[in-house]
């Protein structure tokens, strides 16, 4: 048999039918649904008199527009409330499991899938959200889809997809202290650009990836879309198996043993080839901070804001000029020392328990700087509960952070958590687009320890300089 990549193996196992005109019908093992990109899909089913083909493979939650304040209070925004009611009605009418605002398992769809053990190696997973790539950390083929495709998957349990190319991102070495998976993926995006992997699925390989925890792997895969890839994957290994063991929806008993045996086959064969290839040395990565309005506009924290003249093409120069104007930054400004107004610790990229622990270690015994408003939004109610068991909520609260309920929150600003125009935010989220966190808001993407340190200092700092002190704790 010919040598195959991890991607090939998952793809081949899910082809229901190869259409002569190009794409394949690919079977979907898990369809995650949320309130914002699904109402039109359910309406389409109703109008056509169609049902959901596999309700048991479809799981719904609310995350994008939910308030993160008091859960007992009614939702102030009537349009947001209508969307939540629509999902509840659709789940009821079509027989789907729903983790709603009252559920202790509610949370960001890409946080709850893995923590419930719904996400498993070798699956094809889809969701009407581009950060579905997150689940690829388990060796699943997971991708974001549009609402029409959501409707298609609901009705047929299949996705129509033309086989994409493959790209290997091989990461050697080890991350230095103070440098995280977030810095690694930002550095990669900075290198290949936001369209560097368009039309491809990335497989992250190499000793640096093997050394990462599941939470860190999810952070890396999550931002594959910011490099243009619809999906990112990491082959499952012992770390994956240990993470999944005993999760509520993971297989049990003999089924578990069979599943683990299958998962162990999910790796790229030696001799298999990729269409594209990039190498990165983790030991050379520094903490990253974005300076512009695209995740590729990123530099090590020791760097300076570039000048349009540093770029070659007209299009790049125009983009940089525009980005600097929007961000209110002059060329040559050092990133370190840049004052910030807000801090957001959250999102499907960086709101898992390890992220909160890393941020809490940074702020313990310190206090948020005067004039800075800082917020922690756990990725799920379970992450929140775990953090509270560990006393992290008190660490954050005593340091002056707001401690919230789970949701997407200020990552996309659909709920009441938004930046005011001109406010500068250190954010652990994934997109620094114009207006993403609120019209006129200025987002700097960075890791949880970097954002936590910025909250304390009141400006962007190189968290590595705190390393000696942090290690002593």
């Amino acid at each position, binding site marked *: 048999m010919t040598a195959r990549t991890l991607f090939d193996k998952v793809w081949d196992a899910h082809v*229901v*039918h190869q259409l002569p*005109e*190009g*794409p394949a*019908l690919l*079977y979907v093992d898990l369809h995650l649904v949320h309130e*914002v*990109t699904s*109402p*039109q899909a359910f*309406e389409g089913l109703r109008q*056509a008199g*169609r049902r959901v*083909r596999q309700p048991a493979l479809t799981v719904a939650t609310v995350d*994008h*527009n939910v308030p993160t304040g008091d859960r007992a209070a009614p939702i102030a*925004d009537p349009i*947001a409330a*209508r*969307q939540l009611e*629509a999902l509840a009605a659709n789940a009821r009418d079509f027989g789907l499991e729903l983790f709603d605002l009252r559920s202790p398992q509610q949370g960001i769809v890409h946080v709850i899938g893995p923590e419930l053990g719904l996400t498993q190696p070798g699956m094809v997973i889809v969701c*009407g*959200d*581009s950060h579905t790539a997150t689940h690829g950390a388990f060796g699943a083929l997971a991708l*974001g*889809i*549009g*609402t*029409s*495709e959501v*409707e*298609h998957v609901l*009705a*047929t*349990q299949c996705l*129509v997809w*033309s086989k994409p190319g493959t790209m290997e991102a091989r990461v050697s070495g080890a991350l230095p202290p103070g440098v995280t998976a977030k810095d690694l993926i930002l550095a990669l995006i900075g290198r290949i650009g*936001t*369209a560097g992997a*368009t*039309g491809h699925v990335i497989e992250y390989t190499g000793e640096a990836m093997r050394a990462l925890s599941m939470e860190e792997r999810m952070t890396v895969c999550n931002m594959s*879309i910011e490099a*243009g890839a*619809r999906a990112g994957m990491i082959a499952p290994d012992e770390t994956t198996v240990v993470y999944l063991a005993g999760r509520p929806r993971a297989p049990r008993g003999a089924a578990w043993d069979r599943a683990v045996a299958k998962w162990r086959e999910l790796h790229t064969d030696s001799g298999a080839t990729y269409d594209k290839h990039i190498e990165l040395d983790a030991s050379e990565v520094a903490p990253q901070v974005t300076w512009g309005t*695209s995740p590729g506009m990123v530099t090590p924290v020791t760097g300076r804001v570039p000048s349009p003249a540093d770029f070659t093409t007209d*299009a*790049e120069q*125009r*983009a940089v000029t*525009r980005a600097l104007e929007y961000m209110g930054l002059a060329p040559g400004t050092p990133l370190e020392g840049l004052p910030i107004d807000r801090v957001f610790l959250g999102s499907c990229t960086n709101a898992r328990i390890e992220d909160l622990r890393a941020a809490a270690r940074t702020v313990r015994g310190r206090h948020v700087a005067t004039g800075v408003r800082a917020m922690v939004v756990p990725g799920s109610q379970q992450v929140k509960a775990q953090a509270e068991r560990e006393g992290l909520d008190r660490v954050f609260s005593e340091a002056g952070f707001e401690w919230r309920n789970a949701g997407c929150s200020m990552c*996309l*600003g*659909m709920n009441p958590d938004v930046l005011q125009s001109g406010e500068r935010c250190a954010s652990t989220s994934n*997109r620094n*687009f*114009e*207006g993403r966190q609120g*019209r*006129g808001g200025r987002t700097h993407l960075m890791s949880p320890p970097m954002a936590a340190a910025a909250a304390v200092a009141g400006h962007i700092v190189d968290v590595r300089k705190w390393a000696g002190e942090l290690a002593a704790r």
Partner: protein
Amino acid sequence: MMEPFVRHTGRLAALARANVDTDQIIPKQFLKRVERTGFGPALFHDWRFRPDGSPNPEFELNHPAARGATLLVAGENFGCGSSREHAVWALREYGFRAILAQSFADIFFANCCQNGLLPVRLLPQEIAELFRRHQAAGGEYQLTVDLEEQRVHDGLGFRTTFSMEPYRREMLLHGLDEIGRTLRFEDRIGAYEKGRA
């Protein structure tokens, strides 16, 4: 169902920006609707309107010559970011039938094909030539996009071809319902499910 796209002649609007993300095309405050309609007025909202709600005269689509445009030429990696199909619904409702760019983000490209909005990939020098011709004509520039022939021309010497996967081309040409198309293979889906059980 979806309006078929065979060929279309219309006025071209130009947006000389790269990496136009779907957050710009339709900002998040407009994603709370549960219908597929009502997004056109919010297209490019934060670029198109000033904070006081008045039209921003600097924005490309607000130029008088861009009024009534049905074709859009834009920079590379158009439609990157969020998977929100609302971006495509907004572009369609505003009146666009086709977008021409050097490259599109994958999810956006797929969403376009689901809604009769034709995404046309051209070479960088062809996109540059369209921008040049658009500017030289003071924005009064007409173009024909022909999916049947897979050609773009302006009747004034600009003429090129583009490729489109046969599956998607078929769907766009005839405005096919993709679910109906897939359900022709329902027996195979059933057999696959049985084989796994």
